[in-house]
């Protein structure tokens, strides 16, 4: 491992060959558009840094930035919490919970359905007059009047975050369990023999050894979360109502590009989003590594 070994190139060559052909060209083209005024057809007109200047003073973009974080943050905390809890339960030797395969399959079901079907489903369920959510909550007496979930900024954001949690906790759980399976069983047996309790086993064995996988979960969820788009688009009028509370960064990008034909500006938003993602991924990487140094 220490000395250089060029055989590695041979293993990664096909990946990069295809990658260069299919991904780089569109990405570079997009970068070029950031310096242009382009309607998506005809010839792009070069306008220098105008788009970049505009984005700095664009309050809608800032609004979209914060909306995205609020929705993603809540969703990620819940999703990771549930998935970790499940991973802890299933990896606990004392419980010997049965039916991992069964539960894994069931928990993953919400992720099988396409996002457009999910959106239709929840629009119906959250309808204030007919929705089963309101009917249920009224029946058990938690609320006395129906709530118009998708009409108030806060409830709309919470609703979207909860739907996302519902869609993704199974996925996160599976990925975490894949990581748990990589942990040698002897370690747990040893911990059991040493008399470690559940919490100790989880904190001192499962969590540290899950770190690489956790990093994967965090980074991919961050990337996916910052690109949150279909659900807010499909569940609202496409503009991110109420009061722009579901206007996420990519929804804003999409509207600028495909609704208003400001292709050049949309490309600029894409690169701003790219930069934001890079910065926050770097922070995540850094903080994960610093922690591991401490231990």
């Amino acid at each position: 491992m220490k000395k250089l070994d060029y055989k590695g190139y041979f293993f990664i060559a096909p990946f990069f060959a295809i990658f260069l052909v299919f991904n780089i060209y569109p990405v570079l083209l997009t970068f070029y558009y950031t310096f242009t005024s382009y309607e998506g057809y005809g010839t792009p007109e070069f306008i220098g840094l105008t788009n970049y200047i505009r984005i700095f003073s664009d309050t809608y973009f800032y609004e979209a930035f914060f909306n995205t974080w609020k929705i993603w943050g809540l969703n990620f905390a819940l999703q990771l919490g549930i998935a970790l809890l499940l991973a802890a339960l299933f990896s606990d030797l004392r419980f010997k919970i049965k039916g991992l395969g069964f539960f894994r399959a069931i928990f993953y079901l919400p992720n099988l359905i396409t996002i457009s079907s999910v959106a239709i489903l929840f629009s119906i369920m959250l309808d204030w007059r007919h929705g089963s959510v309101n009917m249920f909550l009224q029946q058990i007496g938690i609320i006395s009047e129906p709530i118009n979930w998708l009409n108030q900024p806060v409830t709309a954001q919470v609703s979207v975050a909860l739907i996302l949690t519902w869609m993704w906790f199974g996925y996160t759980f599976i990925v975490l369990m894949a990581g748990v399976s990589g942990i040698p069983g002897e370690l747990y047996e040893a911990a059991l023999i040493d008399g470690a309790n559940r919490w100790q086993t989880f904190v001192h064995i499962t969590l540290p050894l899950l770190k690489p996988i956790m990093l994967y979960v965090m980074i991919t969820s961050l990337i996916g979360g910052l690109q949150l788009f279909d659900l807010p688009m499909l569940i609202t009028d496409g503009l991110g109502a109420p009061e722009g509370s579901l206007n996420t960064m990519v929804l804003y990008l999409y509207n600028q590009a495909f609704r208003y034909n400001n292709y050049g500006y949309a490309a600029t938003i894409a690169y701003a989003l790219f930069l934001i993602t890079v910065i926050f991924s770097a922070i995540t990487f850094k903080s994960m590594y610093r922690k591991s140094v401490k231990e």
Partner: protein
Amino acid sequence: MTRKQYIKLIVYVFLALLAVISALPFYMMIVNATRDTKEILSGFSFIPGSSLVENYETMMDYVNIWLGFKNSLIVSVSVTVLSGYFSALTAFGFAVYNFKGKNPLFIFMLLMMMVPGQLGLIGFYELNKFIGTLDTFIPLIVPAIASPFVVFFLRQYLATTLHPTLLEAARMDGASELKIFHTIALPIMMPAVATMSIFTFIGSWNNYIVPLVVLFSPEKFTLPVLMGFLKGSQVAQNLGSMYIGIAISVVPIMVAFLFFSKYIISSISAGSVKE
């Protein structure tokens, strides 16, 4: 002892509750596939209706869903195989060897994951026009060779599971690098590859916008594109038929999922049997 059982009961109730929440919409969809539009509009029901055959016939009048099924299967299986194999290869290259530019290349790959895809569509189309691959499955299949997310996952997985000593031992026996990959690393990665394969397969199966844009011939349409076709036709008024279409497109991935499920992770509970 009783306290332990009590806790265990709570755990099972919690799991059961989560399971119900997860499965309910799925069940609704299948039930709705058997009901007619009016029944569906009048609210949810747990009892299947009697319009299954009519719904199916209405749908088949408009699209040959099984042809789309075949196309989707060809695309998704190819994508899954290519993505699984080449990602394992790439992850192995990154995890095992030390070469110049290794870290920059890996970081570059990660960076490219972060570019929002929505805008690449026109460039992607232009590219396929240039190399003459429009209206073929190639733009749907071949890019799967480069799946950064899968590579990233597998490399992270190898970081916990692959011990350099294993490789050294194999090298001593005179095995070639490629053979080491095939006989040692790939089997170790298999659970992780299987896990990722599920996601890849489903992602490809549900992929809508790329096939919509690059395919022109109806006989090449994949399922999601056909479903779009249905949505634009009068069938859209017949909710039951729409649901049966969705059900037909979801149930197979369900089956595929259960099939792969066996190969994921002989988990910790299996390990405990050895006790």
